């Protein structure tokens, strides 16, 4: 269970990216975090694993207070939280296998990792995960030789390699085409269910968020303005999150292939962003 209370992030120039956010995420809950660019979505999830240092507030993961941890404590806590990135953030010159195994860096000693002597259990697990994300046989490929969708699957496998309690997912589909985006979101949702993982997913794509998550949080200018199940996120609510007025108008759609995937909400959302 992740409990965030009064989370505030103030940058040195005085800008407040988060203005006191309170939210609780239950075990195994799949939560989408939506909101316009600059609303503080990335800051919020980066505060959880402290890639960004929070200014005020508390964050507890399974009763462990994260904001006051020292370096060693933070390293241990980070093993319990895995992150997935928009631009995949793979080590491009290393192989798929090395990237997946890098999820174990928190649990493997320095020299073992330097000479790539990972425990056999980890290697078995890595092969199993590669198969699960649909990349069997590609373990020796260099990461930058893969397509975007494949790279994101490697990113997912790396995250699951950590055997985390919660996934922090930053725009997993923003660099992918609509079809691949659906596949990746589906895969994420399935894997979370299978492993009983909680996840916070930053996402621009409102329809994708509606289809694949249990709960949606709307963030606007550093404040939580919506918290509820996907059914409650109607076209009347969207202007509250994104601003603007007309959310019911059908967009003119000339790309036929994408019609079933892109619905009006997402199209307008992109226009506003």
């Amino acid at each position: 269970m992740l409990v965030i209370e009064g989370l505030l992030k103030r940058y040195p120039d005085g800008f407040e990216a988060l203005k006191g956010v309170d939210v609780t995420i239950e075990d195994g809950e799949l939560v989408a975090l939506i909101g316009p660019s600059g609303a503080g979505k990335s800051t919020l999830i980066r505060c959880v694993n402290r890639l960004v240092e929070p200014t005020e507030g508390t964050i507890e993961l399974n009763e462990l207070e994260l904001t006051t941890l020292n370096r060693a404590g933070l390293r241990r806590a980070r093993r319990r939280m895995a992150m997935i990135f928009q631009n995949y953030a793979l080590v491009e010159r290393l192989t798929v296998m090395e990237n997946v195994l890098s999820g174990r860096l928190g649990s493997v000693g320095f020299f073992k990792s330097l000479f790539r002597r990972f425990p056999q259990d980890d290697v078995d697990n890595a092969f199993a995960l590669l198969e699960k994300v649909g990349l069997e046989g590609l373990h020796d490929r260099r990461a930058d030789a893969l397509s975007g969708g494949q790279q994101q699957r490697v990113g997912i496998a790396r995250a699951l390699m950590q055997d985390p309690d919660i996934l922090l997912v930053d725009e997993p589909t923003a660099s992918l085409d609509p079809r691949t985006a659906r596949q990746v979101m589906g895969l994420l949702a399935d894997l979370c269910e299978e492993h009983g993982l909680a996840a916070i997913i930053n996402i621009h794509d409102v329809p994708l968020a509606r289809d694949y998550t249990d709960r949606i949080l709307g963030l606007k200018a550093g404040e939580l303005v919506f918290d509820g199940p996907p059914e409650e996120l109607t076209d009347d609510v969207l202007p509250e999150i994104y601003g603007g007025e007309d959310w019911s108008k059908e967009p003119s759609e000339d790309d036929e292939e994408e019609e079933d995937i892109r619905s009006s909400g997402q199209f307008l959302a992109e226009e506003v962003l």
Partner: protein
Amino acid sequence: MPVEQREDTVVWRRRDKRQAVIHWFVTLGIAAVVLWCFKLIADDTTWEFVWSAPEQGADLAIRMFLPEWFVDIPQLWRDGELWVHVAEYFRQRGLYAMELWDPLVDTIHIATLGTVLGVMIASPLAFLAARNTTPSTTFVRPIALALLVTSRSVNSLIWALLLVVIIGPGMLAGIIAIALRSVGFCGKLLYEAIEEIDENTRDAVKSTGASGMQVLTFGVIPQIAPAFAGISIYRWDINIREATILGLVGAGGIGMALQSAIDTLAWGQVSVIFLAILATVVLSEWVSAKARAAVT
């Protein structure tokens, strides 16, 4: 206003009238300064030396490349002795070229060992100097940057001059001189490469709970590996050329042979050394081009 209304057409100019006049006078001023500088230089030039330069140059080239019996060629031809002299000319130069093997190999050794040593010192300094990997921007980074600038601001010939005094003449002075100069060059390019890495990848490795050293070996080093190899090879290529002159101050290599040949006015030997240096540099260019193509 660059846009002007003239009758019924809108005319666009790059500059308006005032800007154009200012621009014209500034250009005139710069031209005047350049001409004035020319005059200053010309006043301080001993023109007799300049006018006699072609003559002197031709004289030197003749002494370096042409044999003493050059004027006697028709006579020697008639006597049937020309080929004996030609053979002797090449035999002497060939013999001398054989003597150059050792200093030439020394030169390559100085360049290579100096580069390796330089890169070894430069790598940790680069990590201390790069804004995103330094342990402290206020304390450690300025020191690392100062060391890199110091190394870079002194030419390797000057380093060699100092080191010959400190540790005596020989190859060791040359190797250290090359290394000290390479530290600044490689360190600067390397820390710039480190500052340009993709921070997302580094964050991704960090967020697995990896230790500082693991973040370095997984998140940073793979990203700078091609730059590292490219920089080292490029510097090695430069160092081959620099190592050829270090002998002039007694720091080993082919420069020492050059020094003694010039001191004894053995211009024939000088020409052989020049050709040997040329061949070495061409070879190193070829090797480094191949190696650089292989790492990227």
